[in-house]
């Protein structure tokens, strides 16, 4: 049995409180960045600095708050709870929270909980548009999770551990030459593509398809239900960015170098997003299982030869 | 070696050849023709051949019949046992042949034919096994009395 140095009580409480808050705030900033960049590309001015906050406040304070059943409500709690849990198991500079008590694999699974919660809630709305959206979203998940998991497994093999804290330590101890993106470039590429799919941005946003299925999962969401989705988006951007940074970009030794990496990752996604149209569901799978998966398998092969 | 002995040896060979020939002839008659009486006759030929063979086994050149005259042996005799056996076998054979012919008569009565293959088909039809012969079968599981089938054919 490996003994884990338990953090002091106070430190833990601070981590528990701070980590989700930091995630939320950074997430808001990331959303803002995404919207501003998009506006720049489209030669618009873009929203003001606090626009994400305004949006959330507006949604929560709307009068029309339609609930379609208790699962609909619980879904919202699961969304928020799932991501908050995920943040606590995702180490950031200075705070490793509970990352020692649950490793990378655990984190991946925790990240599926809000997804499932949302799927259940949407299902409870009894709107086929929503169900179709979920069907497409889950199909897309099946598509992008394959290269994603290959990348993650490859990374675990390279680092020889699935403990996130140690993964960060290994990269920081060895400097940029030991960063994932250097030691396993192919896996890093595959990971980038699959995480892009995870964010559900173009060209992988068939599950929203406003003109076709009326925004899919969001079709029956209004008021604070929509607000919760918005909050979820903040968390999601943050989580994906941090996870990628942790796995392939050396993680965070300090916030000053850490945050730029996270923003850079998201910036790549945002930049790519605006270049593409939308792929059909089966095309998403076919493409995901062909290119990123192929690259990832090749990368894994190299890793296996190496290890 | 005298001529008589040579002749006797040759007789032994002739006996064996004849026996085998009869058996083969009988087998041919049992396998190839479809007429029941011919088949029964084939059986007769086989039995005769076997009996002849059995006699030939006991044959010794230049030996006398194994009959004791006045309580003393008269030089070399042929083996008496096969002859006794053949006697029994002939009796059995006659019995079996009689039974066979009796059955042939009954078969002709009930099936109206002496063609062995037709008999087989009719039997199959009667006992409900028509899986392989749709053209002759009156229908699966339908037990058609033999007499009626007879009339159908005439």
């Amino acid at each position, binding site marked *: 049995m490996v003994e884990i140095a338990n953090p002091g009580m106070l430190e833990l409480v601070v981590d528990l409180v701070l980590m989700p808050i930091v995630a939320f705030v950074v997430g808001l900033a990331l959303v803002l960045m995404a919207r501003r960049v998009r506006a720049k590309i489209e030669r618009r001015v873009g929203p003001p600095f606090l626009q994400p906050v305004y949006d959330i406040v507006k949604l929560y304070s709307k009068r029309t708050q339609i609930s379609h059943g208790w699962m609909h409500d619980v879904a919202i709690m699961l969304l928020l709870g799932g991501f908050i849990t995920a943040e606590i198991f995702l180490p950031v500079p200075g705070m490793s929270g509970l990352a020692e008590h649950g490793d990378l694999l655990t984190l991946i699974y925790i990240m599926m909980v809000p997804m499932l919660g949302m799927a259940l809630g949407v299902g409870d709305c009894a709107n086929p548009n929503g169900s179709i959206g979920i069907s497409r979203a889950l199909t897309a998940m099946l598509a992008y999770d394959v290269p994603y998991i290959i990348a993650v497994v490859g990374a675990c093999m390279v680092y020889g551990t699935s403990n996130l804290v140690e993964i960060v330590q290994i990269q920081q101890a060895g400097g940029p030459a030991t960063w994932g993106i250097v030691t396993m470039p192919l896996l890093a590429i595959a990971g980038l593509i699959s995480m892009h799919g995870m964010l559900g941005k173009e060209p992988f946003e068939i599950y929203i398809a406003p003109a076709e299925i009326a925004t899919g999962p969001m079709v029956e969401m209004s008021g604070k239900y929509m607000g919760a989705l918005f909050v979820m988006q903040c968390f999601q951007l943050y989580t994906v960015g941090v996870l990628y940074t942790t796995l392939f970009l050396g993680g965070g030794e300090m916030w000053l170098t850490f945050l730029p990496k996270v923003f850079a990752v998201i910036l790549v996604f945002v930049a790519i997003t605006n270049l593409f149209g939308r792929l059909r569901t089966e095309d998403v799978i076919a493409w995901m299982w062909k290119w990123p998966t192929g690259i990832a398998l090749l990368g894994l092969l190299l890793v296996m030869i190496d290890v | 070696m005298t001529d008589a002995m040579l002749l006797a040896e040759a007789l032994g060979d002739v006996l064996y050849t004849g026996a085998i020939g009869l*058996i083969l002839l009988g*087998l041919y008659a*049992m396998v190839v023709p479809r007429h*029941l009486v011919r*088949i*029964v006759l084939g*059986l007769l030929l*086989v*039995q005769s*051949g*076997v*009996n002849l*063979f*059995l006699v030939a*086994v006991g044959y010794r050149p230049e030996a006398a019949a194994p009959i004791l005259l006045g309580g003393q042996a008269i030089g070399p005799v042929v*083996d008496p*046992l*096969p002859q006794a*056996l053949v006697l*029994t*076998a002939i009796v*059995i*054979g006659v*019995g*079996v042949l009689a*039974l*066979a012919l009796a*059955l*042939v008569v*009954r*078969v002709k*009565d*009930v*099936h109206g034919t002496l063609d*062995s293959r037709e*008999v*087989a088909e*009719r*039997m199959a039809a*009667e*006992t*409900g*096994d028509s*899986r392989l012969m749709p053209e002759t079968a009156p229908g*699966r*599981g339908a037990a058609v*009395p*033999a007499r009626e089938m007879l009339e159908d054919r005439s």
Partner: protein
Amino acid sequence: MIGTAHQIVLPVVLPLLAAFLLPLVGRLHVWPARLLGQIVGVLHLAVVAYLWTLVGGGETIVSALGGFAPPLGIVLYADRLSVLFLLVLSVGILLFWPRREHGGTRADTLTLLLLGGGSGLVLSGDLFNIFVFYEIVAVASYGLAASGGNAAGFGAALRYLLLSALGSALALLGIALVYGAAGTLNLADLSVLAPERLSGPMGLAAFLLLVLGFGVKAELFPVNTWVPEVYTAAPTRVTAILAGVVSKLSMVVILRLLVLIFADPGAQTLLLVLGLAGVIAGELAAFRAPDLNRTFAFSSIAQLGLVAVAFSIPDDLGIAAGIAVAVHHAVVKPGLFVIAGHWTGPIERLGGAARVSRPAAIAFVLLSLSIIGIPPFPGFWVKLLLLGEAFAAVDPVYALAGAVILAATVVEAAYLFRAAALMWEPPEGDNRPPAAFPLARLAPTLVLTLLILLAMGAVSPLGEALEAMAAEVGDAAIYVGNVLPGRI
């Protein structure tokens, strides 16, 4: 030893005498004749039971008929094996004694003939007598096969007769070959002379002829084509006797020949090949059989094939396994034929049978389970014995045979349980369920099922008895020593 017990003659003489007497008595009136037949049947059983008390401990009775000492005289030889099969014969025939059927006492006469001939067949210690008794059994069985009075019965009996008579003729040829080579027909004498005079291809050819000849009744592989026809066309009781008992008697003869005279690998291989081919052919054909009667007919071909395979294993335990398979089959199959005889017609029409007559359906399932070899039924222990020997044999061919038998078991289960499952289904479409089973008709099956269930509790003693018996049978020296003291 030459026993003084002349009761050994009784099982042969009594029924034969009665068989010839019966038609005469029948002229006067039918019922005394029938009564006579039944009394003789029971007496036969009593004598056999008495014989068992004499040989049960491992003793043997040798009786030279007419006072001529062997090898010249005719010998009857009773050891545990022969008395066991006498017992099977006697019980089987009593259980399926002809009821009131048209034709007066004809069936009774033939049955008695079968009883006497069969008794002679297992007791004879002499090749030619075996032939004679075999013919008596054969003639009786032709008559019985035709006794159903249906058109198919005559045809089947005729075809059966032709094949069987041809087989007998060939067997006689085989006997002639043996005699020509060895100059004697006494089994014990032959056993002494065989290694010297019957070991070459001549011996093998003789064995082939004998096996093909006697194999007709034993349902051996290529000469069993009469089986489905006769078993379908003949009355149920005849089918039960022929499949259950008579076929085993021929197997006993083949066993004696194999052990005493032809104990060489060539003969064993021959028997193995024929037996295995019988297993494959029987199970596959049964798989596609249209009705229960044919299913069981083919299945008994396969079971007899198992017996042949077991006997071909050059080991006492192989013999034990063979005897076990034979006896087990003799108990199970007649019971199943009774069910098949009542529920004729396509298997697909069996729907609803279990509702109509639950005891019959349950007996069917139990007997099927035993014949497939599912623990804890006796059939399992029988198969364990057989396959254990097959896999333990030195020659890997036997392991292959074991594998084939295992595969055949699956096929066997497939066709038996297809029928069993149908019985619990409602009738298909507009079909009516099969006819209800009168308990009186089912009685033999119930008795046999009970026997099987009882045997479950006595597997070990039975097994030990079998092994002792097989050790005795498997040793040719014992036989020779008993018949011809002083030759060894």
